[in-house]
Structures are given as structure tokens and as C-alpha cells.
């Protein structure tokens, strides 16, 4: 798509170099831990060594005797303010600090405040806690067995560990379709606990001004406005009023969903600042981050497909069990307990489907945040894309051919899926065809046959995913009842430059650049002269934040609509200045001109100046607009990925030799940034597919709790990603754009698993759970008699 604007204006379609980079490449970013306020003190946290234990006593005397230790805060301290429990987004409850018992290893037990972070750590060592261990439940299936210890005995009348049950689709019709099917396949799948592990951990500086009664919290949050409202609702009874709460989300070192929840540490730091009247800094270390912050996935699935002998899919049935840890603190703003899992019919025209989902409590930290995906979409895509390959294997069909046979045809959009979603636009065959051409699919199949004859293990895997992003329409989403619009406020200065503020918050996605380009596209003001701000609740318009690939679908749309409102006013001013009727004017990037007399024109800069100096009588001065955009639908980006792997028969190590990603996210604002988002997303798909897992032993002891054994891929394991695109505009977004940040994380894992299984299919291998570590793969090779 050719850009409509010049390079000087730099609207949509230009790979503008990022406006945020000059500070980052000089080490002048301002992250939470860089903030130092006068009189600031430091907080560190005492954590539980047990996964389930009664707290018999907490002895703080030794800690308080250390010079520099100012206070030790326990559950009892917070109970005095009724702040020891807080609500979760899912209407469950979560401890800030425990009074009775701990529910997972590394749970917060007490907090030490000291003048220096080293002294605070000394204080943590000196706090003595007496525990009485209780029976531990780590397996969600065992948690649901009769007689399992009831973990949430704080909930009156609770007699088991079951959280909720949810069904969607037509059970009877699906059962009938399976009974009548020519072919059926069934596959169990498990996606383990994983952690986003953004390179910056979480933390805050809480600063309560006793004189003005104002609380300012500099905080690693992807959703500052929502946090402000949550604080006002949760702590209203102790006098925190929303106008006196300011949340500032400064530069964030990655988010990926992990910086959506309200963690106990934030709340304790706020309480400490209120109690001490000093700014309190809390920054967790990496082990705390991995062991106690919210996790993603931990999802057990059984997926079944029914089909005709010719490969036509007729029905899908999926049953799942989610392990939520000790509380359902899922970062799931949808109105459905399992989020958007019902996208699981994927890219295929499956007319009948039914899903049945349950959730259980266990002695693990709160699970169920995202890992760079909208809630439960990765799980859904993993299930459909894996079981599709299982069907191909059963039918001895090429997996590409099976996909082409079942794709929703391009002329059927908007398409209503069996589970109720209206897919906005798509052209699935085009994306897969392009990926196959770009990677040379037919030649690769020939090479594979030759290698197989020589005993070498090479596999080719396909994933043709459909994503569902941009939360979201108020019929499907809300947070505490607040609808999931997002916002933009644009002000044009007299000299024709602009400031634009948004309700979202970039964590590396480059909003300062792309949003400026949106304003440039709509108003013709060069993007370099559009200052973008977000993350300060005192100045930015209310919005729900950045996650779920929602910034472009919601706030980006709001930016375009607000700019168009400005253009409407600008037109009136131009008509006045040119002494013509508005109907005689036409817009061309950056100016209004008189139809048939293009030399009679007023640029946006001239109009902006006039808005303050010479505006029409009766019109108010100024040139600005605000828009709160409630999207009519979600956006459905899609793509086809093809992965080529080689497996070492001596070690079981999987090497991703090539990976071709063809993505379609509708119209593109900044191609360079979109490409970067896809590279990053692919890497966060590779990671859980091959390396990352957080597991627990039967006593609830964590393994994978530091970077020693939680293996974030380095440059050595990460392949040279190859990317391409198709463009199918979104019909309902003002710019025709869709979200893109998460597509690759959703689409990559099944492509990699499908490739590894494909390499071993001739040995009778049908499925491998992730992470496909060398050990796991080598054991399969050994079992099949091909290990070296």
C-alpha cells in the first residue's frame, strides 16, 4: 500500500524511525526504578517458603532493631485498615498480606521498610515467621477429587476447590455430529505455566502527600486509569478519593500482560507510604517476579475433531481445565470466564462446536494472566491447530491441503462462527499460499523425503491462525463495569503543532511514533510535530490501557476519529477564511482548497493559527477534540506460519532452521514497527514451545523460579525470522487496521510443535506437549528406537 502522505508528513505506511529512541539509546529512559524522590525509603518483602501453611506467629523485633529499619508491615497491620484482602478482576479475592495462612510458595508474608534497599533486605532476613505446614494441592485434577483439602476455607460455605464451569456452543448437535462422523480424532494437550518475564520486573514508588492528601504512584502498569479507579474503590474507606490519586506509568521495560494485575507489593507500598508519610519504593527482583507474579496458561485440554473421509471438518468439541492457583485473578476483562477461548474453531468453516470449561484452585500463585495474547486465545489456537494436524495424520493428507479444504472462503466475510463470533475480514488461503511460496514448501517436502530415507529427522509445520484482539466492544467486555473503550485527546497549537494524549500505555510498542503518524495521516501535521503522551492519569483522557493488542483497534481509532472532529472544525474556519461555503471545500493532506480552484487553499497550520487569532464570529476559539472509541467489534488478524525443524538424534535438540511468517493485520501504520512486533511475538512463541516452563513438585516447591532454570531464549536459539504480509483491511476500524502485537505469539507454538511432530510422524508420533525440551524429545527418540 502506497502511503498517502509525503515522507515529510510521515502518515500511515511510512517506516518512521521511532520518536522514543533518542532517549533509550542514550540510557535516558525513565523507568520506575530510575525515580528517586526526596526522603524516599525502600521496601522489601518477606516471602513464604511453604506452599500451604498456617501462620502461627511473625516476630519482627530483630528486624526493627536494625538501624535504618523503619517499619515492618504484616497482615495484622493491614487488617487494621481492612486492607488485608483485595478483590480480583474476576470477582474473586486475593490476599494483600496473610493473617491466617499462606497459599503458595513465595507468597508475601510481611514487608520491611528501611532507609536503604540493602538494609530492607537485612530486615527481611531478620523477620522470623512460625509456620504450621498444611496439606498441599498442586494438581488441578486432584484438587477436584472428593476429599481434597478445601483451600479457600476463607469463603463461607465453600466445600470444594471448583471455581466455575462454563459451556458454549451446541452440545446436542455436536454430540450428534460426532456420532455420525466418518472420522474422529481426539488429542489431550497441556500448556504448562509460563511467565512473561519482561526484562524490567514490577515495582512502584508510592508517594502519599499528607498535607495535600494526594497519593501519587509511579508504577509498572499497562493500565494506569483502571488502576486508579481500582485504588479508589478498594481504599475509598480509608479516605483515598479518586481525584487525589495519580497513577503515573513511566517508561516500561516490557509488559506482555504481566503488568496488568494489581500485585500485593503495590498495595503494601501504598499503605506503607500512607503510614510513614514518605515516598516508598518497591522493586521486585527477578526471582520474586518469576515466583510470585501472575502466570499464564496452566491449561489442560482435550480436543476432538469430527470430519468426513475427504477431510471436511464437521464438528469440534473441546473440554478444558484451568489451574488458577489459589485465586482467580485472571486478567480477563471479557464477560466470559474462559475469555476468548471460543475462538477455537479457528480459520475453519466448522459448522458445529461445543466447548466445556472448568477451573480449579491449587496451592500456586494466581494464574491466568496473559502471555502476550488475549485471554485464552493462544490455548484455543494451539488446540485447533494441533488437532487439525492430528486429523491430517489420521487421513494421511498433507496438512496444507487439509487447511485449504476447510478455510472459511474469502467471500464469506463477515463470517459468523459456530461459537458466536463475527469475524470481520480475512483471506486465509492467500496467506497460506504466500507462506508456502516464500518458503518453497514443495521443495522442502522433497528434501524431507530424501532425509527421511537417510534416517535424518526433519519436519515442516504449518499454523494458519485466526486471532481475536482489540478488547473491546462493550457487549463482550468491561472492567468493574467500565466499558472497554479507549480514548484520544488532540490539541492543535497556534503554530500548527499538536499534542495528543491517549488512554493506553506503550511498553515498547512505539505508541509515541505510531499515534503521531495517525494524527499526521488525518490532519497533515508532520508526525515529528505531534507530541504523544500517555500513562499519567492526571493528564491523559480515561482509557483502559494496553494489552490484548488493543491500542490500535481502540485508542488508535479514537485518535483518527478525534482528528476527524478537528478537521470538521478546521473546515468551518477554512470556509470563513476563504469566504466560501463549506460545501465548496475539499480536503487534501494538510489543507482545504476550493473545488476547481486549488490555488485557493488554507493549510492546517494557517487554519490552526486562525483558530486562535481570527476564528469565525460565534465560534469558540481553539482547535482540539477528544474521542472515546467503543469498537463495534473485535478485530481478527490472521496469518499462516511455516516452520522447518531439524532434530538431533544424539541430543533430542530441536533446531528451528527456518520460520516464515505471513501476517495480515489489515492496513499498516508503521511497517517497521509491525515487523518488529512480529519478530518479538515469534520469539515469545518459540520460548514456550521449546524452553520455558514453571513447574511444581508435590509439595508446591517451584522449579523455574529464576533465570538459572527458566530459559528465556537468547540470540543463539532464536532463528532469523522471515516475515511477509497480506493486507485485508478491517471493515469497521476507521483506518482499516487490526491489532498485531500478539499474533505471532499465538501462531508460532503450534507451527513449531507441528513441525517437530511432522519430523517424527513416520515413527507413529502424533503429539508432543510443550516445552519440547531435548530431554522430552530424546526420550521419544529412544522409545522409538532412533536415538543415537
Amino acid at each position: 500500500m502506497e502511503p498517502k502522505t509525503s515522507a515529510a508528513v510521515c502518515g500511515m505506511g511510512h517506516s518512521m524511525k521511532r520518536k522514543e529512541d533518542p532517549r533509550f539509546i542514550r540510557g535516558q529512559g525513565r523507568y520506575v526504578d530510575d525515580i528517586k524522590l526526596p526522603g524516599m525509603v525502600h521496601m522489601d518483602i518477606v516471602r513464604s517458603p511453604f506452599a500451604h501453611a498456617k501462620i502461627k506467629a511473625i516476630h519482627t523485633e530483630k528486624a526493627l532493631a536494625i538501624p535504618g529499619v523503619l517499619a515492618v508491615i504484616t497482615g495484622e497491620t493491614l487488617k487494621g485498615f481492612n486492607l488485608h484482602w483485595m478483590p480480583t478482576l474476576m470477582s474473586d479475592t486475593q490476599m494483600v498480606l496473610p493473617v491466617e495462612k499462606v497459599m503458595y510458595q513465595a507468597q508475601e508474608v510481611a514487608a520491611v521498610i528501611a532507609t536503604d534497599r540493602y538494609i530492607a533486605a537485612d530486615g527481611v532476613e531478620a523477620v522470623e515467621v512460625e509456620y504450621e505446614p498444611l496439606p498441599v494441592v498442586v494438581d488441578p485434577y486432584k484438587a477436584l477429587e472428593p476429599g481434597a483439602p478445601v483451600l479457600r476455607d476463607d469463603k463461607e460455605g465453600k466445600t470444594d476447590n471448583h471455581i466455575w464451569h462454563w459451556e458454549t456452543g451446541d452440545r446436542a448437535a455436536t454430540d450428534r455430529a460426532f456420532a455420525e462422523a466418518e472420522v474422529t480424532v481426539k488429542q489431550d494437550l497441556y500448556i504448562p505455566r509460563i511467565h512473561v518475564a519482561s526484562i524490567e520486573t514490577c515495582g512502584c514508588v508510592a508517594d502519599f502527600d499528607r498535607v495535600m492528601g494526594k497519593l501519587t504512584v509511579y508504577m509498572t502498569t499497562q493500565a494506569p486509569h483502571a488502576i486508579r479507579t481500582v485504588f479508589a474503590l478498594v481504599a475509598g474507606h480509608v479516605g483515598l478519593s479518586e481525584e487525589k490519586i495519580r497513577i503515573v506509568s513511566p517508561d516500561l521495560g516490557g509488559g506482555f500482560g504481566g503488568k496488568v494485575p494489581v500485585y500485593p507489593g503495590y498495595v503494601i507500598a501504598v499503605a506503607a507510604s500512607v503510614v510513614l508519610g514518605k515516598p516508598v519504593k518497591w522493586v521486585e527482583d527477578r526471582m520474586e517476579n518469576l515466583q510470585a507474579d501472575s502466570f499464564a496458561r496452566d491449561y489442560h485440554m482435550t480436543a476432538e475433531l469430527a470430519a468426513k473421509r475427504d477431510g471436511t471438518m464437521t464438528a469440534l468439541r473441546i473440554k478444558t481445565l484451568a489451574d488458577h492457583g489459589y485465586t482467580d485473578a485472571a486478567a480477563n476483562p471479557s464477560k466470559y470466564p474462559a475469555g476468548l477461548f471460543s475462538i477455537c474453531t479457528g480459520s475453519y468453516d466448522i459448522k458445529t462446536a461445543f466447548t466445556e470449561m472448568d477451573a480449579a484452585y491449587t496451592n500456586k500463585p494466581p494464574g491466568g494472566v496473559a502471555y502476550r495474547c488475549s485471554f485464552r486465545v493462544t490455548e484455543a489456537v494451539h488446540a485447533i491447530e494441533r488437532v487439525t494436524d492430528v486429523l491430517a495424520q489420521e487421513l494421511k493428507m498433507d496438512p496444507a491441503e487439509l487447511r485449504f479444504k476447510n478455510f472459511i472462503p474469502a467471500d464469506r466475510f463477515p463470517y459468523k462462527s459456530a461459537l458466536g463470533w463475527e469475524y470481520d475480514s480475512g483471506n486465509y488461503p492467500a496467506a497460506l499460499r504466500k507462506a508456502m511460496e516464500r518458503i518453497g514448501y514443495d521443495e522442502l517436502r522433497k528434501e524431507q523425503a530424501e532425509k527421511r530415507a537417510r534416517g535424518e529427522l526433519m519436519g515442516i509445520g504449518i499454523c494458519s491462525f485466526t486471532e481475536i484482539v482489540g478488547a473491546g466492544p462493550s457487549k463482550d467486555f468491561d472492567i468493574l463495569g467500565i466499558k472497554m473503550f479507549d480514548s484520544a485527546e488532540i490539541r492543535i497549537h497556534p503554530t500548527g503543532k499538536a499534542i495528543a494524549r491517549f488512554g493506553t500505555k506503550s511498553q515498547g510498542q512505539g505508541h509515541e511514533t505510531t499515534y503521531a503518524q495517525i494524527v499526521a495521516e488525518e490532519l497533515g501535521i508532520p508526525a515529528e510535530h505531534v507530541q504523544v503522551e500517555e500513562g499519567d492519569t492526571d493528564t491523559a483522557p480515561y482509557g483502559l490501557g494496553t494489552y490484548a493488542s488493543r491500542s490500535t483497534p481502540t485508542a488508535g481509532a479514537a485518535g483518527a476519529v478525534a482528528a476527524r472532529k478537528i478537521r470538521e472544525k478546521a473546515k468551518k474556519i477554512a470556509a470563513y477564511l476563504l469566504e466560501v461555503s463549506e460545501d465548496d471545500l475539499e480536503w487534501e493532506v494538510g489543507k482545504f482548497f476550493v473545488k476547481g480552484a486549488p490555488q485557493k487553499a488554507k493549510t492546517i497550520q494557517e487554519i490552526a493559527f486562525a483558530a486562535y487569532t481570527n476564528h469565525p464570529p460565534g465560534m469558540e476559539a481553539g482547535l482540539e477534540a477528544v474521542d472515546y472509541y467503543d469498537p463495534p467489534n473485535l478485530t481478527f488478524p490472521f496469518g499462516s506460519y511455516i516452520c522447518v525443524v531439524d532434530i538431533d538424534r544424539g541430543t533430542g535438540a530441536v533446531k528451528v532452521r527456518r520460520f516464515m511468517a505471513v501476517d495480515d493485520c489489515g492496513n499498516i501504520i508503521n511497517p517497521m514497527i509491525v515487523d518488529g512486533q512480529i519478530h518479538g511475538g515469534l520469539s515469545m512463541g518459540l520460548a514456550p514451545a521449546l524452553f520455558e516452563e514453571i513447574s511444581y513438585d508435590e509439595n508446591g516447591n517451584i522449579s523455574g523460579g529464576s533465570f538459572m532454570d527458566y530459559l528465556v531464549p537468547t540470540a543463539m536459539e532464536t532463528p532469523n525470522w522471515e516475515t511477509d504480509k497480506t493486507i485485508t483491511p478491517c471493515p469497521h476500524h476507521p483506518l482499516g487496521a487490526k491489532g498485531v502485537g500478539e499474533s505471532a505469539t499465538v501462531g508460532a507454538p503450534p507451527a513449531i510443535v507441528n513441525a517437530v511432530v511432522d519430523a517424527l510422524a513416520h515413527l507413529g508420533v502424533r503429539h508432543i506437549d510443550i516445552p519440547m525440551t531435548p530431554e522430552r524429545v530424546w526420550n521419544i527418540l529412544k522409545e522409538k528406537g532412533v536415538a543415537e
Partner: protein
Amino acid sequence: MAQHQIQVKINGTDQKAEVESRLLLVHLLREKLSMTGTHIGCDTTHCGACTVLLDGVPVKSCTVLAVQADGREVMTVEGLEQGGRLHPIQEGFRQEHGLQCGYCTPGMLMTGYALLQKNADPSEAEIREAISGNLCRCTGYVNIIKSIRHAAKAVAAEPAAK
């Protein structure tokens, strides 16, 4: 806790400080000297966000004690720009979109800078190996490798930039 007087040349300027034995170099930089360009991303020397050069060699400043830097030279990200002019490694990261959230960037820049000091024309494999102690969660490394290549070419075209 024992206190030590140390003197460290940081980005060409002598800095004196009184430090505890246990103070980490990264905290000397960030907390005592308010040079916050060097970041902390883990506690186990894995992520490399805290990479600085100690006598020209990249080290992870979260596992070096400040007292170990006594009498030595430290270079941080703040030392790359000279006389208002960006170093080619910085320019390379901007041109090739080698950063997103910016958090790993200072460590990547220092590792890349050190690599170019000893290898003016590194191959992709050499770059991958050199940055294998620096984790990035945003970029997938592809553009970081391009950024370092970009810088190598710029240095070759204009040796004075080195």
C-alpha cells in the same frame, strides 16, 4: 559494615565514593552516582541489562562489587555519545529498529560496542555469540544483529567514529 574509599574512572571522569563492602557496582552507578542508564533485570547474571565495560571488557555490573572497580575504568551507556555525537552503535540501533522497550538496550549497546572494538567486521554468528549473554524479550534479536552490522559498516566507512 566496613566502609571503603574507592576511586573509579567512569566515562573518563574520576569519581570518588565511600562504599560498603557489599555494594554492587550497578548500585554504585545507579544509586550513588544517579547514572540510571545501566539497568537491572535479574539477580543471576543472566539478562545482561546491567552490562558495562570494566577496563574495556563487558561485565555484568550486578555481580561485580563496587570495591572491585577501585582504581579501574568503567564505561557505561552514558559514555557512548561523545561531544554531542552519537556513537555508530547507537545510531545503528535507531536505524535498524534494534530496540523496543529500551530496557535491555544499554546492555546490548555496551556488548555491541565491546565486540566492535575487538572485531570490526563481525559475522552474524559472531554477533549472536557476543550478545548471547544479553536477553531481549521484545525484538527477537534479528534487528539487534542488523543494528550491530549497521554500526560496523558505519565505523568502517568512517574510522574516526570508532
